[in-house]
């Protein structure tokens, strides 16, 4: 086939495709690809693990620090040690003082601005060698225990979605949102 005949043949095919609307320009209504499958939020109850400061995404359940001690000893002690004292810099989760003379020790108690983050992080990522193995109640319990170790809640205070998000963390006003500067 000569070049000109080949070009003419392709031209006819192209014209046919355009007529059929198969080759409309990208971005136009006709060619818009929509391949997402509709899904209901209730299909995501075991998938969407985001527990936010406003309480959204917090599951039902509750726990106290007294209950959380045994959950902690079984699942957390190896890395976070007795009383949250840790075995290395990043595993210290209790104590610290942002106003100390030397470089401050930043822990859940001294640094973390939101109590919801503790529940969210434990549920999605802890324990590090077996994440997502704790029940929601166990996550509430161990959350309560870590808050208790930091002197933020009492040993028998019930921690649930409402009481947790009502907690004002010691460094809660210590952060400056830099995002608007970009």
């Amino acid at each position: 086939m000569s070049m000109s005949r080949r070009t003419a043949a392709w031209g006819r095919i192209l014209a046919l495709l355009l007529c059929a609307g198969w080759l409309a320009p990208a971005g136009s209504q006709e060619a818009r690809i929509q391949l997402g499958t509709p899904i209901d939020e209730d299909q995501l109850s075991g998938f969407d693990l985001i527990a936010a400061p406003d309480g959204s995404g917090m599951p039902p359940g509750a726990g106290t620090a007294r209950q959380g001690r045994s959950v902690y000893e079984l699942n957390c002690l190896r890395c976070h040690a007795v009383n949250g004292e840790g075995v290395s810099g990043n595993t210290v989760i209790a104590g610290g003082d942002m106003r100390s003379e030397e470089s401050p020790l930043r822990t859940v108690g001294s640094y973390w601005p939101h109590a919801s983050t503790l529940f969210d992080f434990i549920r999605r990522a802890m324990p590090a060698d077996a994440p997502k193995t704790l029940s929601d109640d166990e996550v509430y319990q161990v959350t309560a225990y870590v808050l208790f170790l930091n002197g933020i809640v009492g040993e028998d205070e019930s921690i649930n979605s409402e009481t947790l998000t009502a907690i004002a963390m010691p460094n809660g006003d210590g952060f400056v949102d830099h995002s608007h500067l970009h």
Partner: protein
Amino acid sequence: MKELQWEKAAGNGLLNRRHLLQLGLTGLGAAGASAAFGQDAGAILQIPEWSRMPGANASAYGERSRYAGDLQRMAGTPDPIYPGGGSSRTPLQFLQGTITPNALHFERHHAGIPDIDPAGHTLVINGLVRQPLAFSYENLLKYPMVSRINFLECSGNSGALLRGGNADGTAQSLHGLLSCAEWTGVPLSTLLDEAGVSPEARWVAAVGADAASMGRSVPIEKALDDVLVALYQNGEPIRPGQGYPVRLFCPGWEGNISVKWLTQLKLMREPAQFRDETSKYTDTMPDRSSLQFTFPMGVKSLITSPSGRMNLPRPGIYQVTGVAWSGHGAIRRVEVSADGGATWAEAEMQAEPGDKALARFTIPWEWSGGPAVLQSRAADSAGNVQPVRDEVLAARGTISFYHNNCIQSWGVDDGGAISNVYV
């Protein structure tokens, strides 16, 4: 022999490249010329043995030449306290141009690299949308895609240098959490439009499918601007260490927010306040307030050759080369100093710098054999100029180590040994 008149561009031996071109003397390797002919100008050239027999057959998967050196990432020692946590660093001092080969792109993982079968992977968009949607990998591949060449830098890159102390390292060990690639994927805005973003949605919480289900919150303005749901890196499917089968890619922003193994995007009024945007990746200032959501990586540059732990074999002319980048735009200018910042000369860009991409600069330098301090200083299209270390320390102190973009100083001693120095 004709006496050469070097045109000085700045103190302690920085030269004018145009003049060198006229003299036909550029192209010397940083570690000294080692071409066969260069060793002995009087040698009689022979046809080499590899030109006298057939070579190897074509191969299914290419390897570097066995003579090209053993280019490796530098991976940290695994820590049982953080299973799968850690990083590996790009050998910047041995690379040229601006594109990082995929096998050498830096990695940072928080709970290891998941072994994801894309047939079982789902990307969900939910929250403040008209219709929550689930996308299969197979379907994501059917969308029109765009490609962007962008750097990626961990916000902890170069962090150790803020605190000072003994930092006798290489460009790789000190700054290797930096790479640059062509990223190809579906604009995030395309998928968000399909789900129908509610007017009250201000943030997109992105979550990965790794063991940590690592999450970060992205402002809606960025999400609708240039963020990609990336599927390919330098032309091939993204590798597992970079987020296979699909990752978020936020051009110019700290690496951690380009969530790998992307499995959920939730539209929210406020940030999710994940661990990795509160406890980590935040910067505590000297007054003990902490900056949160510091997203773009500041304008920065680095001389990659000659650099830390290299040795200059003899006095003479060397090509100083390095990379520059900015999360705020394109590189406009790079200057180089050989006298610790007393005088500066503008380096030549190897190609037109791209937006939020690595740019390669080069400038010839005649090492006298005496002490020198090599530095580079970049400026970007937004008017930012790379600061000296003391400026960064004065502004931010040493409590935090993220987002350090200060000028790197490489000291050359009179024996030619190069090391990190604080000026």
